[in-house]
């Protein structure tokens, strides 16, 4: 067993939420560069230029690239030989989020209750996802997820007879309905199979994949390719003003499911895909 103090996790999260909001990872900037080489519409090119100028300013001045500094999604892959010491893990994660958002002058967007709607003023609670994995390390992944793209996400329990064609139609329609609202060019995360909540979780986790990396299974990689081609036919383009690049990438994750079921979840991410990770 290896001891990891939860304060170390809190400090790491405080740093990662700031870094994520100030500086895009190279997988995202590379995807935006690819979009620039593919976009045919002049107005689309102009938007991509603004996006590039914006993330350059954010990096240089260490200011948030977007005013929606997001919900803090914290993914913890905890080695099964790790012993977490020093107090509650959940409290430590939330402490890290609160500290990072305050120190970084990030926007506090979280409410205590979806109906009463009082701001908690420290951007907690974080969304915490834990996985127990082999080993004696803790991997901390942070994604600061904006509300505009999250609101355009959809989940549907399709009948099995809908098959791949039905799933594809639902995914493409979800992106078309999102249009400019979700800040395209998008990263489209898809979860197929499992059950109601598993499909949503798969869609969310697919967003953490290196942007544009294909699924390791060639059959699923081909389906991802089919989806991005269909999505980029829509003409939505950067910020919905018309163009040939509506999605930067489509990531699909699948899981086995019940004989009655074909759940499909589509989790939309904007072009400002703010993710960071560290290993403790």
């Amino acid at each position, binding site marked *: 067993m290896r001891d990891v103090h939860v304060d170390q996790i809190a400090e790491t999260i405080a740093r990662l939420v700031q870094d994520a909001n100030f500086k895009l990872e190279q997988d995202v900037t590379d995807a935006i560069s690819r979009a620039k080489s593919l976009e045919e519409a002049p107005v689309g090119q102009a938007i991509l230029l603004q996006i590039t100028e914006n993330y350059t*300013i954010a990096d240089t*001045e260490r200011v948030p690239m977007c005013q*929606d500094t997001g919900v803090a999604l914290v993914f913890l892959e905890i080695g099964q030989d790790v012993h977490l010491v020093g107090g509650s893990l959940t409290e430590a994660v939330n402490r890290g989020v609160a500290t990072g958002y305050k120190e970084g002058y990030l926007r506090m967007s979280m409410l205590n209750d979806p109906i009463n709607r009082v701001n908690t003023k420290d951007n907690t609670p974080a969304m915490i996802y834990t996985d127990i994995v082999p080993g004696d390390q803790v991997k901390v992944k942070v994604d600061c997820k904006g509300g505009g793209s999250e609101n355009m996400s959809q989940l549907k329990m399709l009948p099995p007879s809908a098959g791949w064609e039905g799933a594809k139609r639902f995914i493409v329609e979800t992106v078309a309905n999102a249009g400019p609202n979700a800040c395209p060019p998008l990263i489209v995360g898809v979860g197929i199979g499992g059950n109601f909540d598993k499909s949503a979780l798969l869609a969310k986790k697919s967003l953490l994949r290196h942007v544009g990396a294909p699924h390791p299974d060639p059959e699923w990689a081909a389906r991802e390719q089919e989806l991005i081609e269909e999505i980029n*036919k829509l003409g939505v383009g950067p910020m*919905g003003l018309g163009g040939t690049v509506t999605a930067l990438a489509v990531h699909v994750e699948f899981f086995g499911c019940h004989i009655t079921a074909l759940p499909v979840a589509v989790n939309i991410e904007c072009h400002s895909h703010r993710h960071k990770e560290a290993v403790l």
Partner: protein
Amino acid sequence: MAKVYITTPLTEEQVRGVKAGDEVYITGAIYTARDAAHKRMIEDLEAGRSLPFDTQGAVIYYVGPTPPKPGQVIGSAGPTTSYRMDKFTPEMLRQGVKGVIGKGYRSDEVKAGFVEHGAVYLVSTGGAGALLARTIEQAEVVAYEDLGAEAVRRLTVKEFPTVCIHDASGGDQYYTGQSQWVKPDAMVKPKKPEAGE
């Protein structure tokens, strides 16, 4: 696509000079309001109280900025998604508001409102909050300070960059722009506007 420079408060003539698809650069005072501030303003009107700013010819910007770092006028300040204000926009247009800035699709009722009241819907680039903040020269809270990022602020902007989506004659640039690039075999086609030119 023309470049149009406008100064607030907007006159009818200025509004008529803006067409869907134009690049529109705004100079002068604009007022921030998002979901919570719109709800408060409508409640104020229903209670017979006056609104926190003069709405005649006013431009509202749907934004909740990040807090300024020491030495900054304002933090990052890009647009939020507009449809969440659809419920409140017709009343704001009746109050004399002539322009709103946000991003994304509007309801048919709101689109009809721009035509009926002679107003324009402008969008700026979502996620470009650091870049857009450079055009903001002054910022001060004028109402609902308890709402934090969602308080109503008066921003003094210089050539704040936008694109006109809906003009006062029913033009719809999302439809026009996307129609130009949609492929004939696309699974979904851009949504045709109900009314307009």
